[in-house]
């Protein structure tokens, strides 16, 4: 039942919204992983980020795409929790409570063992519109424990204009989705963060909407 609702939600609402109201300038679509286990590491500016990334996939793969999202926000009310867990299919992550790393990422590892494709926002939060905030190390600790999981960097730009943090009115804007090549393995968390920052910076040159902001 939930699976049907999920497909209807994407067919009737999200796909038309992404295609018509937003409009994507996609670069490097062939780099998008088609089979799990894999992790998409995207920058985060808007609630639309997750929906846009999921909409890139055909309907029969939707249930394999699992966004990792903050438990404190998405599980805060019963309705929001039902929607996040059943329609979007998030893997909740405890940001606020102090828990052991192993327990913290157990949901992610289980999904990767099931050959799911995870969407992770390594900045941890949406932050200020159209700016990349500090990249957290959590993603490195997940990948470092496994050797079967490629990380694909994705840079998005423009969605912070369409629906920024704290706004309810969605305004139509085109946005860039640039999918990079998989990240090379890193020795330390610090290296990993630097690499990802550099990759985002390189992917920026393929964006069309970079100048859409006055300062």
């Amino acid at each position, binding site marked *: 039942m939930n699976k049907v609702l999920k497909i209807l939600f994407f067919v009737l609402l999200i796909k038309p919204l992404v295609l018509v109201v937003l409009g994507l300038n996609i670069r490097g679509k062939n780099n998008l992983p088609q089979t799990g286990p894999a992790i998409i590491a995207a920058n985060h500016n808007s609630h639309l980020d997750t929906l846009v990334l999921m909409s890139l996939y055909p309907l029969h793969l939707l249930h394999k795409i699992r966004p990792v999202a903050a438990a404190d926000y998405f599980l805060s009310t019963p309705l929001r929790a039902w929607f996040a867990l059943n329609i979007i299919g998030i893997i909740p992550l405890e940001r606020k409570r102090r828990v052991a790393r192993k327990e913290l990422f157990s949901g992610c590892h289980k999904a990767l063992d099931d050959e799911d494709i995870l969407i992770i926002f390594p900045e941890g939060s949406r932050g200020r519109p159209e700016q990349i905030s500090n990249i957290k190390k959590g993603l490195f600790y997940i990948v470092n424990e496994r050797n079967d999981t490629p990380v694909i960097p994705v840079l998005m730009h423009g969605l912070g204009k369409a629906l920024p943090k704290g706004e309810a*009115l969605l*305004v*139509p804007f*085109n946005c860039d989705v640039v999918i990079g090549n998989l990240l090379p393995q890193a020795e330390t968390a610090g290296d990993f963060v630097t690499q990802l920052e550099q990759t985002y910076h390189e992917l920026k040159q393929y964006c*069309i909407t970079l*100048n*859409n902001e*006055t300062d």
Partner: protein
Amino acid sequence: MLNIPQNSLLIMLTVLALLVVASLFRLIIEKNHPEKDYTELRQRIQSWWWMIGILFACMSLGTQYTIILFAFISFLALKEFLSIVPTRQADRRIIFWAYLSIPLQYYFVSIQWYGMFIIFIPIYIFLFLPMRMVLTGETKGFIRAAGVMHWAIMLTVFCLSHIAYLLVLPEKNIDAGNIGLVIFLIFMTQFNDVCQYIWGKTLGKHPVIPKVSPNKTWEGFLGAMLTITLVAGFIGPYLTPLSIKLSLLAGLIINVSGFIGDVVVSAIKRDLEIKDSGALIPGHGGILDRFDSLIFTAPLFFHYLRYIAY
């Protein structure tokens, strides 16, 4: 066929035949040169099939459908424009209002209210948006934001909606119908782009405005001027109420203004340091990359025609 006047139908079939020729040509050179990559050419021709297919389908269905199609094209063009130019976070709500001008403008077209159609954006929207901007209270960057937004709406909504108004003018050439006017404008404009490219490729040496568009040459421009003026003189009387002489002049207007539209959009992209304005049309780029010339030819052809023939 569905109610298409015979002259227009014949030209539409000719265009489809040209597309078939282009597709066959692509297949043949792809077969003869298997080592080369013809992806872009293939995408370009496929996109032409889609664009012309959608246009012809809407025109066969009737005037209202074609008006809705152009309203939608205005929406895509305005969205693309506002996505690449600098705007302020504070202007999000004003931009939302700017989008609402599209259904109203095209509604005035559909009820043939010429007086309102022609002043709605240059006067009412022009005065309304800065008022709405004042209400948000953000004064930093106010002048630039007001200018950018009004320019965007003028180019993508006001100018492009002239194509739709051609459809509701009183019918003067019964054999072609008002569809004939739209076909004449769009195909002369696109053919002008093609001619400039071909003449420029074969003879081009002296760039017209090297700082903006190094590929646009005097040879290409003048060659296209000759070709377009003659072709317009030939098919103008067939598709429009204009005589041969007046059709020649219509061709000249489309040639010159099409060139200007092309380089103006090029200057915008150069300012923003981008190659394409979007990625909506594979092989072509964005909506503005394809409609750049039409933004300038549509109002100028419309008002020339309206002055001369109505």
